[in-house]
């Protein structure tokens, strides 16, 4: 018999012992081979984990039988894959946080780069620009995207030719490179305002070209999740279709819609290329999105890094602080989305 129900399985203490001995073996190997030079901690941990895995699976095969050994091997592989996926993410956040914290001070959030050479200065102009441009992009994209998805789900139900065409166009738009969106906005605004136009609003238009398809796609999925039975229940009560959509479909899916919109905002807030073209860059404050160049955080980071001045370290520190600020803004948006969708979640479905 391969495996008997009463056969004892490996206890947690044995697993811990195996882990410790794996690490010890790995350290011993490293100490012997690296005689004299310094021991690489990361290398020891990775080799130790591999030894631990081999030991566990081997012991499991010998005492627990083949099925449980295979289960442990697979669980180990899946956990390692998860760990691998996590490494770049943790490393990125760690790098940005440690390098960004140097200039993450009050001056950074209270002054622009006007007349600053070398150390000092701040990114207030870029933060204002990013917030204004993203807000305008959201104001343009959310109504268009939401209404398009309502059309596709509620009115294009018969999969008519027009709704298929819209769906295809949205798919194509999802794949547009962001630089193309920037060129599009630049070309369009040049027609109205003459060549060489730069303004924050044009940047917002470029971003909404990128944002609309994301909003349409995510909202469409969320609206399709609303059970048809709820629409029928409402219609059968003599409620017109538009009120059914407004007062039954949208409230039921509002949590998902908000999450989708926040993801779309996070997607465009870090765009650099289109803003570099149409919003340009400047060292000064500019609160007016309809006039003159406007700095944004991604462009600020790019600019600080690419054209370092006399005191190179001061420019690099500002670039990292700008990156950290951008990540924090995105994280706050995601946090806000979670809170909103939790508050608005339909009650009682447990």
């Amino acid at each position: 018999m391969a495996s008997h129900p009463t056969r004892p399985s490996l206890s947690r203490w044995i697993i811990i012992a195996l882990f410790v001995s794996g690490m010890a073996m790995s350290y011993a190997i490293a100490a012997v081979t690296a005689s004299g030079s310094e021991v690489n901690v990361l290398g020891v941990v990775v080799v130790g984990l591999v030894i631990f895995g081999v030991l566990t699976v081997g012991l499991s095969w010998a005492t627990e039988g083949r099925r449980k050994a295979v289960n442990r091997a697979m669980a180990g592989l899946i956990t390692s894959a998860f760990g691998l996926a996590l490494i770049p993410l943790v490393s990125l956040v760690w790098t940005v946080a440690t390098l960004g914290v140097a200039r993450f001070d009050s001056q950074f959030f209270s002054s622009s780069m006007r007349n600053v050479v070398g150390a000092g200065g701040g990114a207030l102009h870029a933060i204002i620009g990013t917030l204004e441009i993203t807000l305008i992009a959201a104001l343009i994209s959310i109504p268009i995207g939401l209404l398009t998805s309502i059309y596709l789900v509620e009115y294009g139900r018969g999969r008519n030719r027009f709704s298929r065409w819209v769906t295809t166009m949205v798919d194509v738009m999802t794949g547009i490179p962001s630089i193309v969106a920037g060129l599009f906005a630049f070309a369009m605004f040049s027609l109205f305002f003459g060549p060489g136009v730069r303004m924050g609003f044009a940047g917002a238009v470029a971003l909404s070209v990128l944002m609309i398809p994301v909003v349409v796609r995510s909202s469409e999925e969320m609206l399709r999740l609303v059970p048809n039975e709820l629409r029928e229940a409402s219609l059968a009560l003599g409620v017109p279709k538009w009120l059914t959509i407004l007062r039954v479909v949208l409230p039921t899916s509002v949590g998902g819609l908000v999450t989708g919109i926040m993801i779309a905002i996070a997607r465009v807030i870090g765009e650099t290329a289109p803003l570099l073209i149409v919003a340009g860059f400047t060292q000064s404050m500019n609160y007016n999105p309809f006039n003159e160049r406007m700095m944004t955080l991604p462009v600020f980071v790019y600019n600080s890094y690419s054209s370092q001045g006399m005191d190179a370290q001061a420019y690099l520190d500002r670039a990292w602080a700008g990156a950290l600020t951008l990540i924090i803004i995105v994280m706050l948006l995601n946090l806000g989305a979670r809170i909103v969708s939790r508050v608005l979640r339909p009650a009682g479905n447990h």
Partner: protein
Amino acid sequence: MGKIIELDRVNVFYGSFLAVEDVSLTIEPQTVTAFIGPSGCGKSTLLRTLNRMHEVIPGARVDGEILLDGANLYDDDVDPVSVRREVGMVFQRPNPFPTMSIRDNVLAGYKLNHDRLSKSDEDEIVESALKSANLWKEVKNRLAKPGGGLSGGQQQRLCIARAIAIRPRVLLMDEPTSALDPISTQAIEDLVSQLKKDYTIVIVTHNMQQAARVSDRTAFFNIAGEGEPGKLVEFDDTSVIFSNPSKKNTEDYISGRFG
């Protein structure tokens, strides 16, 4: 009070597919009429044409006449929305609105339409609808709680309360107990018997015992085969259908030889 429903040579199509062919029957006011028959025979489809809910499905259309107290539901100037206020509907699976409390679910027909009611009118409607649906005692102390927290049978009675709160004349029930346990089924069946003194009720059911228990008249539908339209085979008093049907086909179905 309930209304009389007359169907005259009704055909129902999905696109070019004929789903129900040539049905003529008369449903008397304040009676319970059961539609029975095998799956796919068009009984639910026909039920939905009685309040124009079939129009929700793209391509569905009706020809022939359906008269509600003599007025054709399909006249050009008839608004399907107003038809549905006269002819309420209860569905197979309980579908209370998850975003609303029990109280708001009962009032949904008014609230969703922005109808303004005084607080006392609202209270009165909620209480009388829930009492009619035999649910008042169970929920009167938790009207502000969400409707989704009730048991399946209670949810279905909540849906019935919601349907009758807007005071329709006719109540359509599309297999209202097929998702419920026997005790909840019993509660709904008792309720149907009480409601018939105020409403004309049409109930679609797969359960022949249920048809025999609750209905006054029974219509048996059948299809000749896959892709064929459903037809009305026999329509008579329930006692006659279940004891002495005139068609061989009906007898075979009733006695469980097919379907």
